[in-house]
């Protein structure tokens, strides 16, 4: 009996040690994020020292040039990068759990290709028909395109009863192909070099915003969604172990899957419409985190949200540093860094992600 008790103590200890390790990782990531924020405010064509940044943030003087750069350019952009990164990472996890496929991407539902179609439509046709409605015209069309594509994918995959993850992925592939075809069709017929340039630019992603107000809607949506999904970690866990097993743990999978996917669609629609297409964040970051702490959503949700914000923030810093006196589109950086990382994960994942 004594021995049994000792074994239990040791096991409990293992579990508690794991939780302490998790907390240490959270603290570590927060430190890296804060460093990233400082760096992001400091680097660019004009370097601003940390001293000055703190002074500017505290005093909010609006007189000199540095203050203008920080308050009107770098701070909104930094916040935007954090919001977009956190949102993409969050949606990555939610999508992967909902369709029970660790390779699912937030864009699997056809949102990105739908949004591209919407944006292309606006740039090549919408502007002519409606005139330049306002500066949000492009965002509105991209959002609508993304949401319509996602709704199409979801309804296709639920034809004939239960939505299965296989049907969802297949429907996503089909709708992606369809949207790309129509986008290319418009581009070919449009024969508009200027328009084509802005479409290409849009599809490479863009975090440079000049108006803090652009942050408000995505900021609120991403923040609320983070809070909501942090409370859903048990449901997400149950979903990941399969439909039938989830049912036997009291989770009504069909109901929650629809709800979670709808929220993800909304978030990605909003992010894509304001930042263009930024790939790989929602795919690579959750994978890396799972490699470190396992797949329990209680741990990977908070870690991925912070780590994705870090990933995009540093990618943005890099994009401003690589080309002197210019910047590289953010989507190019995330894909150039993300794709090799993903290759590495695929090669090394061996038994850890047994999908036998």
């Amino acid at each position, binding site marked *: 009996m004594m021995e*049994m008790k000792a*074994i*239990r103590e040791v*096991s*409990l200890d*293992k*579990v508690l040690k*794991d939780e302490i390790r998790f907390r240490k990782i959270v603290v570590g990531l927060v430190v890296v994020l804060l460093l990233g924020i400082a760096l992001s405010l400091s680097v660019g064509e004009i370097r601003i020292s940390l001293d000055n940044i703190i002074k500017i943030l505290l005093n909010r003087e609006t007189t000199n040039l540095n203050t203008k750069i920080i308050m009107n350019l770098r701070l909104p952009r930094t916040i935007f990068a954090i919001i977009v990164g956190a949102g993409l990472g969050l949606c990555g996890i939610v999508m992967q759990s909902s369709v*029970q*496929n*660790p390779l699912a991407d937030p864009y699997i539902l056809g949102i990105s290709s739908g949004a591209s179609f919407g944006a292309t439509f606006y740039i090549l046709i919408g502007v002519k028909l409606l005139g330049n409605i306002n500066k949000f015209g492009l965002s509105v069309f991209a959002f609508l395109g993304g949401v319509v594509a996602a709704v199409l994918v979801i309804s296709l995959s639920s034809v004939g009863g239960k939505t299965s993850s296989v049907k969802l992925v297949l429907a996503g592939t089909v709708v992606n192909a369809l949207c790309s075809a129509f986008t290319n069709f418009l581009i070919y017929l449009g024969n508009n070099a200027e328009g084509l340039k802005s479409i290409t630019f849009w599809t490479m992603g863009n975090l440079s915003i000049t108006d803090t107000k652009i942050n408000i809607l995505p900021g609120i949506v991403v923040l609320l969604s983070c809070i909501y999904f942090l*409370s*859903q970690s*048990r*449901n997400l*866990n*149950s979903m*990941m*172990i*399969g*439909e*039938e*097993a989830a*049912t*036997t*743990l*009291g*989770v*009504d999978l069909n109901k929650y899957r629809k709800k979670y996917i709808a929220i993800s669609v909304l978030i990605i629609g909003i992010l894509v419409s304001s930042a263009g297409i930024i790939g790989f964040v929602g795919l690579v970051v959750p994978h890396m985190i*799972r*490699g470190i702490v*396992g*797949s*329990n959503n209680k741990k990977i949700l908070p870690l991925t949200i912070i780590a994705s914000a870090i990933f995009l923030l540093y990618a943005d810093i890099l994009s401003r540093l690589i080309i002197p006196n210019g910047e590289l589109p953010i989507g190019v950086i995330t894909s150039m860094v993300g794709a090799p990382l993903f290759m590495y994960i695929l090669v090394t994942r061996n*038994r*850890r*992600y*047994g*999908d*036998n």
Partner: protein
Amino acid sequence: MVLEAKNIEIKLGDKTIIEDVSIKVDKGKSVGIIGPNGCGKSTLLKSIYKYIKPDKGEIFLDNKNIIDENPKEIFKHMAVVGQFNQISFNFSVYDIVLMGRSPHKTFLEKDTQKDREIVIESLQKVGMLSYINRDFNTLSGGEKQRVILARALAQKPKILILDEPTNHLDIKYQIEILEIVKSLNISVLSVLHDLALTYKYCDYIYVIDGGKVVKSGTPDEIITRETIKDMYKIDSKVIFDGEDMAICYRK
């Protein structure tokens, strides 16, 4: 708990899989279902654990109507050990067993010391405690099955549904799992592919063939040469050794 399914009918497409089946599991009793492949026994179990909605009939767990009741309410009392253990994500053994606590939890409730102790106790019961930090996907089929049983135990069920839970196990673990289940003294409804084990561990047996209950009774009444002949079209000899039984199959 008492489980009672009344006049269940299940159609998949236009094919009737289960037709007018009624079964009952009394408190603390172990009830087995046997029948040839494709007879509909797994489908019947699926309707009992809410994965499939029957087209007709009612299923009661004590006074709760399983079909309409909130799933969480049902799975606080009912646990299922089945065949669906393929997981595409890397969960630790601890994480998997802890999921057994989720029907008892509201969204914002934290995992308590008590939950951790229940997990450890459940893993100890199935002899998998030393694997607590292992990645579930690196375990063998038999080890996985024992962890899934531990998850079911962590639900603290009053009724257990077993759908061929011992398929991947060697005989030592088959017996061990069924002994663990027996020691719980709760109601059990099981489909076991082994007739000798069904005989040994069930108090009452239903025979399903062609989607209907064709026979039911005590193990002594049911596990006979005639039943085996009817079900599998195979001749056999049933041999008794004390409380145990063996079947010799003839061509």
